[in-house]
Each structure stands twice: as structure tokens, then as C-alpha cells.
């Protein structure tokens, strides 16, 4: 199936969790929006992307 990740369309295997995407991108702390709605921290490990999802992943950085 197809999903959009940070404005780029890509293939995603059904039932693969969102955490796999974060691992792939080496993101250990993130804010995530799915179809414009921000996921709560505790929702991130449980979320399974669905066909057509528009996912935005923001690495949480706080350095200066």
C-alpha cells in the first residue's frame, strides 16, 4: 500500500507498525502527525499506518 511520509509517497507493508518507520529513519524521539492530527506519545508505538495516510515525522531536537 502507499503512504505519504514527510510529503513523499512511499510503499508500506500492511500491518507494519509506525515504530518501524521511526527505526528506519533513526528517530528516537519524535512528534508525529497522521492526516493532520498529532499522535500522543503513548499512541506512537501502537499506530499501524493505513493506506493513504499522510504522516509527518518531526525529530524532536532541543539543542542550541
Amino acid at each position, binding site marked *: 500500500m502507499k503512504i505519504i511520509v514527510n510529503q513523499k509517497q512511499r510503499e508500506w507493508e500492511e500491518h507494519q507498525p509506525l515504530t518501524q518507520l521511526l527505526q528506519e529513519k533513526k*528517530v528516537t524521539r519524535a512528534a508525529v502527525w497522521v492526516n*493532520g492530527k498529532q499522535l500522543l506519545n503513548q499512541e506512537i508505538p501502537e499506530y499501524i499506518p493505513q493506506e493513504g495516510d499522510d504522516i*509527518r515525522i518531526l525529530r524532536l*531536537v532541543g*539543542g*542550541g
Partner: protein
Amino acid sequence: MEYSGRYARNYNAFTREEGEKFSQFRVLVVGCGGLGGYIIEHLGRLGIGHITVVDGDCFEETNLNRQLFCTEELLGTPKALAAKARMDQVNREVEVVPLVKRMTEDNVDEILQGHHIAIDALDNIESRFVLEEGCQRAGVPMVHGAIGGWYGQVGVGFPGKPLLPKIYGRDREKGMEEELGNPSFTPGIIAGMQVALCMKVLLNQGEELVGKLLTIDLENMEFISFRLED
């Protein structure tokens, strides 16, 4: 104010009418490290009239790879004082007030007094919230910038429309910056964008910036604008 040749190249990017306002602006920069050094440099060269710079730390060896005002000679010097000394060399028309102290919940309201805008150049999420909450109480906009490794982000929190809770939620722990490192090139880019945002807000051109966060991934050269919903 009589304009000398030093500001000639500001024009066309800014109108003369806009430029004539610069000396009246009072900007607070919290943090004089990686982001703060470049931010202060830009503000001073533009001719911003008053800059208060806040940082309780002194330069140490690990700052040398990226912090503009950090030189081998200045190791051990308070960063805020180094910023003042640098601006005295660059532009004496700019009043720089250095505060060698850490901004906290106890002093943020006092520090913010008399400023048109604050720039968040801090190095941790918890202090950023202290600054933004103070800005909300004072009715002052805050330009946020944060970096880690090849990544960075900028946005503006406006009075009544804070930005940080939309990014970080309630989580005030450290971000990924420690595991990502801090190379030389990221602070300059994010700082430049923060100053551009600062000027747009000061010149009342910041309406379209409400709820917007721009993220930068220099590793993949991706620049993504997020619209953060209420």
C-alpha cells in the same frame, strides 16, 4: 537617525522606511551559544538598536567547533560578555546589554520587560518553555529555533498562540541533540532563519507564520513546512 553607508546594503531588501525603524527595536536573545552567536551578529549588523543578551555560561573547548564568538583566547569568558565585546567591534551604534545569568522562572518576567520580541537560542527544552510562558504573560512574540546534528527547526509563538506545546507536547525532557551531535553548519542556518522571522514579525509581516513550523534536514536536503493545528 542619520544613515551612514554601513546600512546601504540593507536597502532593497528593506525599504528605507522599514530601515529607519531598526534603531528603535529592542530584541531579547536568550542563549549566546551556537544559535545565539550568529543571531546577535545578524541583529547587530542589521542595526537593531538594542539587544539584551542572556547566558550564564562561559566558553569551553567543546564550543570551539561551532559557536561564533568562541575563540581559543576567550575560553573561560562569559558568553554574554563576549557577545557584547564582539558587537562593540562590529557596530557601536547598537546598544548591547549582557546579562551573565541563567534565565529562570524567577527572573524571566523582569528580563522580558521593555522588549518587542524574544529570540529563543536556548540549548534545552525545559528553558524554552520558561521563556515562552514568560513571553505569553508579557504579550511578546518569541522566535523559536532548535538544532541537533543535521536537523533544525524554526517557528514563531505569538501572544495567545504559543508554539512549543504544539511541538513538544508536555514533554520537557531532552531531545535527540546529544545523540546527533552539533556540527558547525547547522546553527548558522537556523540562526539566520530566526533573524529573518524576527524581522518579519517586527515589521508586522508575520501573520502567515502563526502555527507554522519549518523543519530542515540537511542530511537529505529536505525543507518541510508543518502547519500545526490548534
